[in-house]
C-alpha cells in the first residue's frame, strides 16, 4: 500500500524534469527509496524504461511495402480501407446534388400515359424494341446473339436465361431491369436498375472483368455464381453461391470486400453488413436454371470483329495480349513467351503490358519451369502496380515459387505482407495454409497449428482445408 509520501516521490520519479530537483528534494527521494521497496521497484522500471523507450521500434516492414507506401504518397492515393475525411463532405455534396436532380426530374416527369417504360416482350427470337431512343434499345430476355452495349434488358419470364457473347449467363426474377454499359470480350459492365439477377460467369480468363453495379454497390466478379439485388425498397444485396466476388463501395471502401462461397453482403445507408452463411435457397433455385459451365469452357464471341469495331478501343497492346493468349492456348509456349516479352517491351507501361508480366511469369513458372524468371516478373508487376487487378496472382505466384524452392523464410515474409493487406483476399486460404507450412518447416508447430486450424474453420469445404488438415497431421495435432 502506498503512503502519501510514495505518491509525492513517484511524481518526482516520473517527471522528466526531475533532474532539476532541489538538493533537499533529492535527499528526501533518496531516503524514501531506501525505506520503501515498492517505490524502489517503481524507480527501477522508470530508469530501465527510460533507457529502453527511445530505442523501441515497431517491426520493420518489407522493402516492397515501403516502396508501395512511397508510391502511394507520390500519387496521393489513400488506402482502400481508410474512411477518408472527404467521406462526409462527399456525402453532403452527393445528397445536395441528388436533391437538385430529384427536384428537376419531378418537375419534368411525364404523366403515366406518356411514360415510355421498357415493354417486356415474350421470349422468342431476339429483337430490339426501337420504340425508345436509339441509344437505349430494350431487348427481351432470351439468348440474344446481337445484344450489345447500351441495351436495356427486361426479364419478363422467369427461367429464361440470357447468354452474353462471351458465354456468361444471367437470369433475373420477373420485372428485373438491367442495362448493359460495356460489352467487349475483355470487359462486361452491367447496371442493375431494378430487381434481382443471378449470374454464372466464366472465370477461366483472369484478365476479363465482369462487373455488376447496383445503386450503392459494385460487384466485381472473379469467375463465379452470384446474385445481386437492387430495389428502391430494400438495401443492395450480393450473395455468392460459388467462387469469389469483390464488392466495392466507391466512397466507403474503394478497395472492396471479398466475398466467398455462401457469404452475403448487404449495404444500406452507409452501413455494410456481412453475413457469413447466407440463405441461398431462392438463389440456388434460380441458379439451377443456368446451364453449368464446365471448367475451361470458353464460348467464343459470336461477333468479335463487330464488338471490336463497335467498341473501337481495342488497342495494339490488347491485340498483342490476345495473340499471346491464343498461342498459349495452342500450347505454343515458346512463341507465347516471345509474344508476351514483345508486349512488355513495347507497352510495358500500359495495363496490358503490366498484366502480361503476370501472364508471362505464370507461364514461366508452371510450364517452362523457370522460377527465377517468373519471380523477377511477378516482382516487376508488384513494383509497377502494387494495387493492380492481378496483384493477388502475383503474390501467390511468388509464394508458390518460394515454397517450391524450400525458401521457408521468404514464404513466411511474403505471406505476412500479403495477409497484412488482404485478410480476405482471393488467395487468403492458400496464403494462410502456406504460412502454416513455412512455420511448420521452421519447427514452430504450435504457431503452424493455429494457421491450419484457421483455414479449416473458415474454409471448411475448400481444397485448402484438406491441405491444412494434412499439415495438422504432420504437426502431430488432432484433426477433428
Amino acid at each position, binding site marked *: 500500500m502506498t503512503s502519501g509520501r510514495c505518491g509525492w516521490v513517484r511524481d518526482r520519479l516520473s517527471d522528466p524534469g526531475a533532474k532539476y530537483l532541489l538538493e533537499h528534494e533529492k535527499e528526501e527521494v533518496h531516503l524514501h527509496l531506501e525505506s520503501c521497496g515498492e517505490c524502489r521497484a*517503481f524507480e527501477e522500471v522508470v530508469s530501465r524504461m527510460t533507457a529502453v523507450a527511445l530505442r523501441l521500434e515497431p517491426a520493420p516492414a518489407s522493402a516492397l511495402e515501403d516502396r508501395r507506401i512511397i508510391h*502511394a504518397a507520390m500519387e496521393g492515393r489513400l488506402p482502400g480501407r481508410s474512411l477518408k*475525411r472527404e467521406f462526409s463532405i462527399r456525402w453532403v455534396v452527393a445528397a445536395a446534388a441528388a436533391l437538385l436532380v430529384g427536384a428537376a426530374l419531378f418537375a419534368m416527369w411525364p404523366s403515366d400515359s406518356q411514360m415510355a417504360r421498357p415493354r417486356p416482350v415474350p421470349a422468342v427470337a431476339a429483337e430490339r424494341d426501337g420504340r425508345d431512343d436509339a441509344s437505349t434499345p430494350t431487348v427481351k430476355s432470351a439468348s440474344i446473339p446481337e445484344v450489345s452495349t447500351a441495351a436495356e434488358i427486361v426479364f419478363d419470364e422467369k427461367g429464361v436465361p440470357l447468354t452474353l457473347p462471351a458465354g456468361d449467363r444471367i437470369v433475373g426474377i420477373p420485372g428485373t431491369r438491367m442495362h448493359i454499359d460495356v460489352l467487349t470480350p475483355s470487359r462486361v459492365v452491367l447496371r442493375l436498375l431494378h430487381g434481382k439477377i443471378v449470374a454464372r460467369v466464366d472465370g477461366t480468363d483472369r484478365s476479363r472483368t465482369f462487373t455488376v453495379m447496383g445503386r450503392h454497390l459494385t460487384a466485381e466478379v472473379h469467375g463465379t455464381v452470384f446474385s445481386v439485388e437492387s430495389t428502391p425498397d430494400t438495401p443492395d444485396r450480393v450473395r455468392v453461391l460459388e467462387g469469389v466476388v469483390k464488392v466495392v463501395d466507391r466512397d466507403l471502401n474503394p478497395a472492396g470486400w471479398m466475398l466467398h462461397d455462401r457469404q452475403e453482403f448487404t449495404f444500406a445507408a452507409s452501413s455494410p453488413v456481412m453475413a457469413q452463411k447466407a440463405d441461398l435457397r431462392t438463389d440456388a433455385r434460380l441458379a439451377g436454371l443456368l446451364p453449368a459451365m464446365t471448367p475451361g469452357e470458353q464460348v467464343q464471341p459470336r461477333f468479335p470483329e463487330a464488338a471490336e469495331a463497335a467498341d473501337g478501343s481495342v488497342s495494339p497492346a490488347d491485340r498483342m495480349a490476345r495473340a499471346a493468349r491464343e498461342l498459349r492456348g495452342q500450347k505454343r509456349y515458346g512463341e507465347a513467351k516471345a509474344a508476351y516479352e514483345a508486349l512488355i517491351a513495347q507497352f510495358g507501361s500500359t495495363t496490358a503490358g503490366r498484366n502480361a508480366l503476370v501472364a508471362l511469369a505464370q507461364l514461366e513458372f508452371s510450364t517452362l519451369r523457370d522460377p527465377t524468371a517468373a519471380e523477377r516478373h511477378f516482382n516487376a508487376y508488384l513494383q509497377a502496380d502494387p494495387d493492380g487487378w492481378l496483384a493477388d496472382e502475383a503474390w501467390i505466384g511468388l509464394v508458390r515459387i518460394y515454397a517450391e524452392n524450400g525458401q521457408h523464410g521468404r514464404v513466411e515474409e511474403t505471406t505476412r505482407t500479403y495477409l497484412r*493487406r488482404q485478410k480476405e483476399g482471393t488467395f487468403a486460404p492458400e496464403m494462410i495454409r502456406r504460412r502454416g507450412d513455412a512455420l511448420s518447416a521452421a519447427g514452430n508447430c504450435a504457431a503452424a497449428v493455429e494457421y491450419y486450424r484457421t483455414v479449416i474453420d473458415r474454409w471448411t469445404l475448400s481444397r485448402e482445408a484438406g491441405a491444412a488438415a494434412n499439415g495438422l497431421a504432420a504437426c502431430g495435432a488432432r484433426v477433428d
Partner: protein
Amino acid sequence: MTATIHQSRTAREPSGSQKSLFDTPLIERAAEGDRAAREQLAAACLPRVRRIVGIGYGPKDDMDDVVQIAMVTVFRDLSQLRSAAGFRAWMDTVVWNVIRSHGRRRSRFASLFIPAEQEIVEAHTRPMEEGAIIHRELFFRLHRHLSGIGEKKRMAAVLSLCFGYVDSEIADLMGCSVEAAKKRTQHGRRELFERLRRDPAYVDLLAEVMP
C-alpha cells in the same frame, strides 16, 4: 518557440545518411514539387513516420493504412510548409493529427474484418532472433498498457518518453499551454510506469534488456 524547439531538436537529429536526407535544400525542392526530391524525402521520412504510428497508434491490423494516410497527407500538404527548418516538427504534427483522427474514425466505424489478435501479432512481427523477440514483446506490451491511458496523457507520455520531446514542444504539438503539457506528461508517464510496474512479465523483460 522556434529557438527552444530547434535547440532541443538537435539532440534527436538522425545520424549518418538520414541526416543529409533531411537537408533544407532537399525539403525546399520537394516542396516546390520536384518529383525526385519528393521520392528521396519520402524514403527518408518513412522510418520516422512508421515509428510514430507504430508507437502512437499501435501495432493494429490497419497500421500500414495509417502510415500510408500519414505519408499521403504529409506530401499533399508539403507546399504549405512555411520553413524547411521546421519540417520535422511539422511532419510529426501532421502524423499525430492523422493518428488521432483515424483512431476516432476507427472507433466510430467498426472494421468489418477484425483478425484474431494472434494474427495481428504475427502480422507485425519478425522472425526470430532472441533479442528481437524480447524487443517485440516489450513493444506489444508497452502498447497494451498505453492503450489503457487517456488519449491526451498517452500522447504526451509517448512524445516525452519515446521521442524525447520537451514540454514546450509537446505543448506545440498538442496545441495546449506548456503548463498543461507538463501536467499531461507527468501524469501520463506516472500512470504508464505504474502499469508497467504491476506487469511482472514486463519487469522481467526490462531486466533482461537492461540488467
